[in-house]
């Protein structure tokens, strides 16, 4: 049986950071295992920007963010396998994985880091009533179909839940020509980031129904209608207030759950609230030598925090391997992660997105700002009224590549009013593999001074399907 000092399961944001950090702490015998074809995990389908402000002091798209870590991994020559799914781990630190290239493989580790991520809560987990047609899917699945596979999952869409993935998908679908009829959130406040409420819903006039939820899904083969109804403070439907929407798709963005079947199988207990494994202050589980981090531990709000936690796990696993890991000084507390919890502003006001506080601002015709708590809010308000700009992310078709879609974004923000015109330009072009991050796909799009640039490396190759 092959031996490694450290085996890391899952090459998303947490696993990549853990591998790099463990290497930098002197561990040379590392194996990073990834079930998918590519390193990077779910970041690869998150083509929108907003990642990396803490890590890199830049706003990156998901694939760009992942590539920064993949580059660090490759610079160090850290060993990894893709297409390799871990089937079992054992209490004495064996890892069994199955892969297309190597078959069934057993390796022995001195330490294991589980960075297995999370999965989306499904219709079944929230018992959404109604029939069982196709067209009811999680927002993340629709995101994958759209951004990786290049297909629309719906044309007339209602979104249940104000989680960030749902908000991001509301904008993505709208930019690609779908009609998003609304977003319903059962709670009285939003659960996603305020910035996403503003830039994904408000920008496109997509209604947000707070304190509403789905009463019934209707349709035999494909979704035909969805019935939305307001709820009272006990979350019970208020009779007689049904709203019926003709839709072909219902997207669910109703939360994420850590994914830890490997740990559960060997008797690691789960945290009752986070549903991740119980760990100590060193991120070590009840089994010595097994560490957990990232969204598999609890669901984080920012990927930058996932990377930081991955580094902590990598550092501690390295210390464990070297016999220098100190006893955990404090127990691990699952941070309270939730939405910024905003209510909707009154007519004519808008939410400030400069900080999480979310002031409700208004601006009069003389550009006097009220409702702000700081000068930055004032500047934001005036900008939003006089010259609002946005960064646009999308995909373009690509020929001769190992994938069918190349994620792209504007190199600098463009005027908000030009978004759809720029989208038309993006739809017209076709890139040719190979492409590298930063390659200009359209120069000075529509004279805005902004280029459309690639945000993922795509090699030449035969793509499936």
């Amino acid at each position, binding site marked *: 049986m092959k031996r490694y000092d450290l085996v890391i399961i899952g090459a998303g944001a947490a696993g990549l950071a853990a591998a790099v950090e463990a290497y930098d702490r002197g561990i040379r015998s590392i194996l990073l295992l990834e079930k998918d074809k590519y390193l990077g995990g779910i970041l690869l389908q998150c083509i929108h920007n907003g990642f990396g402000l803490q890590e890199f002091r830049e706003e990156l798209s998901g694939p760009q963010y992942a590539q920064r870590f993949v580059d660090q991994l490759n610079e160090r020559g850290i060993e990894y396998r893709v297409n390799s799914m871990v089937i079992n781990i054992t209490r004495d630190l064996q890892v069994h994985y199955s892969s297309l290239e190597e078959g069934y493989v057993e390796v022995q580790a001195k330490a294991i880091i589980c960075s297995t991520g999370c999965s989306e809560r499904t219709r079944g987990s929230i018992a959404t009533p109604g029939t*069982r047609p196709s067209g009811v899917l999680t927002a993340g699945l629709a995101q994958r179909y759209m951004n990786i*596979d290049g297909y629309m999952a719906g044309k007339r869409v209602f979104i249940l839940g104000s989680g960030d993935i749902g908000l991001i998908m509301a904008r993505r679908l709208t930019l690609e020509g779908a009609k998003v009829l609304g977003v319903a959130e059962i709670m009285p406040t939003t659960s996603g980031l305020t910035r996403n409420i503003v830039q994904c819903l408000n920008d496109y006039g997509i209604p947000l129904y707070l304190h509403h939820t789905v009463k019934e899904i209707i349709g035999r083969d494909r979704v035909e209608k969805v019935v939305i109804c307001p709820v009272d403070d006990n979350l019970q439907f208020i009779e007689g207030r049904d709203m019926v929407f003709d839709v072909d798709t219902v997207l669910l963005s109703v939360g994420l759950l850590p994914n830890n079947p490997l740990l559960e199988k060997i008797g690691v207990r789960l945290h009752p609230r986070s549903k991740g494994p119980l760990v100590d202050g060193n991120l070590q589980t009840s089994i010595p030598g097994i560490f957990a981090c990232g969204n598999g531990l609890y669901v984080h709000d920012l990927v930058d925090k996932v990377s930081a936690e991955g580094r902590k796990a990598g550092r501690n696993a390295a210390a464990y391997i070297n016999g220098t890991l100190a006893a955990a000084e404090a127990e691990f507390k699952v941070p309270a992660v939730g939405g910024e919890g905003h209510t909707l502003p009154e007519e004519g006001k808008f939410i400030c997105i400069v900080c999480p506080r979310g002031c409700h601002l208004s601006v009069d015709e003389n550009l006097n700002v009220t409702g702000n708590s700081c000068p930055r809010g004032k500047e934001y308000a005036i900008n939003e009224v006089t010259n609002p700009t946005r960064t646009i992310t999308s995909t373009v078709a690509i020929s001769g590549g190992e994938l069918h*879609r190349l994620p792209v974004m504007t190199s600098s923000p463009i005027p908000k009013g030009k978004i759809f015109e720029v989208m038309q330009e993006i739809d017209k072009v076709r890139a040719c593999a190979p492409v590298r991050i930063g390659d200009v796909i359209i120069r000075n799009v529509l004279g805005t001074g902004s280029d459309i640039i690639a945000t993922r490396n795509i090699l030449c190759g035969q793509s499936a399907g």
Partner: protein
Amino acid sequence: MYDIAIIGAGVIGATIARNLSRYKVSVLVLEKNSDVGDETSCANSAIIHAGYDPHPGTLKAELNYPGHMMFTKVCEELDVELQRIGALTISTSEEESAKLRVLLDYGIRNGAQVEIIGQERLREIEPFVTKKAVEALWAPTSGIINPFELVVALMENAMDNGVELHLEEKVTGLRKENGSFRIETEKGSYQARVVINCAGVASGEINNLISERKEAIRPRKGEYYVLDHFPAPYVTHTLFSVPSAKGKGVLVSPTTHGNYLIGPSSEFTDSADDKGTDAPTLSQVREQAFRLVDEIPMQYVIREFSGLRAYHDSGDFVINSPVEGFINMLGIQSPGLASSPAIGERAVGMVGEIIPLEEKPDYNPRRRPLYRVNNLSLEQRKALIAKDPAFGQMVCRCEQVTKGEVVDCIRRNCGARSIKGVKKRVRPGFGKCQGGFCEPLIMEILSEELGIDRNRINYSNRGSFILMEKTKGEE
């Protein structure tokens, strides 16, 4: 001209098709859905009932016990998962205990293996039973089965032996013409000497196309919760409530894959298309389940579903021939699955009175076993991967299914054509993510195997497409 046409490819139609495939007769099966076993046969409790519940003297009583015993052979021949884990009908009061004794009497008269066991033995057998339980009726031969696999396996084996299956052909007309039958469907027209009506919830309508004696089948809906498999110990037997006028009541049972079913409710519905679930009914199901167990780990709920029982007003199975050469299988609701092998034998007997049945010398009762990579020993697994690396490539992390198994289930007779078809055959999509991770991969494999674009892959029936057009024009 076919010798026999079977309308409906649920467990009854598929069983009869397989039983007839033993003989030198031509058999056509017409199914309105895009896959076999897509109605009642795929949405039920998946229990092989032990035969103590039906009232003695009924057809149900006659066929249940022998039918459920035949499954040992059927499942062995067809490589279908069956576990005789035993059933416990739980009494929590004197009144219920009196009813248990009625069931005991029924069981004995029906030839079933049953006994009443007291507190101590009950808790020893099933530690997770409610503290309120006072005694139970123990039926050790009761089993759990994989109903999806069963219907597919029956039809696959029938097709291996020459039966023709036509999917997506709803029967729209049926008449007698010069001593044989003319069957009109959405797509074509067929002639057969014998017609067997196995249309389940729609069997009343089929009967009414040809028979003077009109029949009404009323769909009675049952809603269920499905729990994910989890490593902690939980219920290991099928736990039933004491039955009421509405049926066997809510049960809590493991499935052959270590999931748990909780349900069903029992309410008549107006529509044979009504596959919905609703919150009030499910909350009643949960409440009733607390008569059986004190703890339900609801955090593991991964799905809710409903199925329709084909209820006939007699409350019994109705097997008759109102027109010469036309055989009805009406009202085959619970214990229809358990009785199906015996129903199949009965049907063959009835056909034999019309058409002489001569055995084929080359009939093979066995289907090629599934790979079941997850159940293989390490050596077997490595050997299989060495033959075909696709058995090393995992496509479903929740249920641990390989690409090799998915490809195999598409390439067999009665192969999968849809996401649900693959799910029913080899399980990707049954787990916690409910297809969130594996669906795009299954779609890619289906698209490759069937040679069609991904946006033409359906979830199940025609019209249940998943993807629409490509985001950027045509390529």
